[in-house]
């Protein structure tokens, strides 16, 4: 019994670390720091996957952990740092909403996910319950980051943080099949995004409020 309690505590601790990194992403002002925080979040996710592999006795989750560590924790951040230098956007993160309001909204989202998830999972195992609430918080924070950041790289980091939340939920769901396949599918998606940014030199996200852009692109007016 004692060892299960420890298993829960450790899983929650690691999950909470992923969530903290999600908040970290919201208040970083420099691109390099954003990418480092993302790398730490991915490494925490790897630890969560490895811990679940150990606790649930599910060796395939070690594969998910390895993908999270090597691909998301090391390769993607390295590629992003290189991209940022290449595109010359390393200085500051442009925000559509200030840091303070964003953080407040983030806290609100975490509260929302707890309020939503905990009552509906009264019958589920405790392990699933809390990790689901954590996972949903990370997903919503990722969404928030995508909405409140202006340029394409930070938007993609937001998407990848969202994805970390999804995988955190998936590894925490006891005995869920296809988790490895899903994490591979996501990795392909992420790799394509980075390739797209590099290849097409996308700096800004497109639905910006820039009027010049609106005139050139709404080629729809008669």
């Amino acid at each position, binding site marked *: 019994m004692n060892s299960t309690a420890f298993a829960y505590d450790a899983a929650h601790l690691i999950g909470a670390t992923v969530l903290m990194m999600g908040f970290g992403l919201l208040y970083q002002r420099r691109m390099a720091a954003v990418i480092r925080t993302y790398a730490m979040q991915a490494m925490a996710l790897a630890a969560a996957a490895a811990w679940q592999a150990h606790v649930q006795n599910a060796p395939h989750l070690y594969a998910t952990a390895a993908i999270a560590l090597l691909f998301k924790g090391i390769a993607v951040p390295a590629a992003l740092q290189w991209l940022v230098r290449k595109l010359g956007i390393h200085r500051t993160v442009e925000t559509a909403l200030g840091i303070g309001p964003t953080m407040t909204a983030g806290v609100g989202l975490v509260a929302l996910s707890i309020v939503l998830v905990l009552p509906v999972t009264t019958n589920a195992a405790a392990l699933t319950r809390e990790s689901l609430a954590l996972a949903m918080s990370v997903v919503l924070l990722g969404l928030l980051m995508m909405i409140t950041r202006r340029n394409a790289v930070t938007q993609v980091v937001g998407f990848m943080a969202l994805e970390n939340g999804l995988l955190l939920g998936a590894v925490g769901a006891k005995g*869920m099949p*296809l988790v490895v*396949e899903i994490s591979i599918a996501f990795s392909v998606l992420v790799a394509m995004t980075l390739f797209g940014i590099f290849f097409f030199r996308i700096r800004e996200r497109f639905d910006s409020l820039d009027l010049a852009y609106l005139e050139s692109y709404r080629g729809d007016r008669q």
Partner: protein
Amino acid sequence: MMASLAQDAFHDSLPWILGLPLVSAPLLALIPSWRVGAWSNAAVSALTLLASLGLFFVRPEAGMLLFIDDFNIYLVVLTCFVGFTTAVFSAAYIARESHASRLKPLQLRFYHSMYQAFMFTMLLALSANNIGVLWVAVEGATLTTVMMVSLYRTRAAIEAAWKYFILCSVGIGLALFGTLLIYLAAQPVMSDGMAAMAWSKMMLRAAEFQPELMSLGFVFLLVGYGTKTGLAPMHAWLPDAHAEGPTPISAVLSGLLLNVALYALLRFKMLISANGHALAPGPLLIALGGLSIFVAAFMLYRRGDIKRLFAYSSIEHMGIMTFAFGMGGPLANFAGLLHMAMHSLVKSAIFFTVGMIAQSAGTKQIADIRGLTASRPLLGWALVIGVLAIAGLPPMGVFMSEFLVISSTFAREPLLAIPVMLGLLVAFGALIIKMQGMAFGEPSPLPGMEAMSAPGTGARAAGYLPIFAHLSLALVAGIMLPGPLVIWFQAVAKMLG
């Protein structure tokens, strides 16, 4: 005798249906000549269509990953059919594009490869018995279509592809969270592993699942797959992706991909309905469907770009289907299923026509296209017939399905029928006004005509045949839907509850 022969030849054709596009995707990338590539693409699609017809003779056993039942067999065959006709049209289309040197041979190799990869992901999504496989397949379909939308490499095409990519990635991300919640709802009953993700197993015991988790999951799934279905207010990617990609891709996006996303939603709706205690999915679908009809109908008036016009019309029609399935019941479901098929056929025919119009007029601006029935009679009249069909005039099939939607709604919720009717009329007016300007009046010059007549007569026929094949099928369905098809649609409509 014939049946047993067919049984031997087609014993379990599902591996062929999935295998042909999967294997040919990398092979098509290796063919240096785009002409050979285009016709091989069509040939592979024809073989896939043949293999899909084999499903009528032998229904494969339901496995843990794949299965075929009454519901998806109809969509698999429809997808293979439209996939084939689009491949034929595409051969003619790219012959002209490459003559006008808008596309290079290397891009075309990539395009054909992606076309088959896209067909594979859609057929996999339709035949998946596993909500995880379904998700991976829809994600793959997003990736392959993003690549095809960005094919022209113009600024507008890249922006459209990026917008599509980001919005739909978030959409499928949320859908995965929903999938996870459904698994968690099923897991205590089904125990760990594949069974808790398999449609065929889950449907049997859905009543015992945790209703609260299922309700929460369905909301995520509705937003996630609803984004991919193009439901308002998550529809922002759809017009751009349709307008900036190559026309054959607009045709399969509208005709097939939106259906696949709606199919995913409907499967989950069946699961939720079978549970009985979870939230009622109907009102949510009715709300999103109704909103889509309205938003799209009013947006139609402001469109200046011919492909965008019909992209918004796709949003409207996906709204009609979603609304019909939300109403539920045998009649409304029947109407929804029929509308799925009719919209696929008619809308892809319209996009084929629009593609050729844009190529010969050298512009996509509606204001610059006039008098097509005089300058290009065949194309002009195809546009007129197509628009009348999609606007819902008898005797085409769309009229029948829309009529059934409205009348079944009137019978049960008369107050809901009025706004839907209004939305349909608004859209009808917009489409007729735009069509009139393009089809009649003093003909505008056609600078692209030289490129149009460049390819041989074979390629020219390949452009027109799919249009008239689709339109005549819609006409037949509108005049007299074959008896066996009616019985079958009724059976599926009952399944959908």
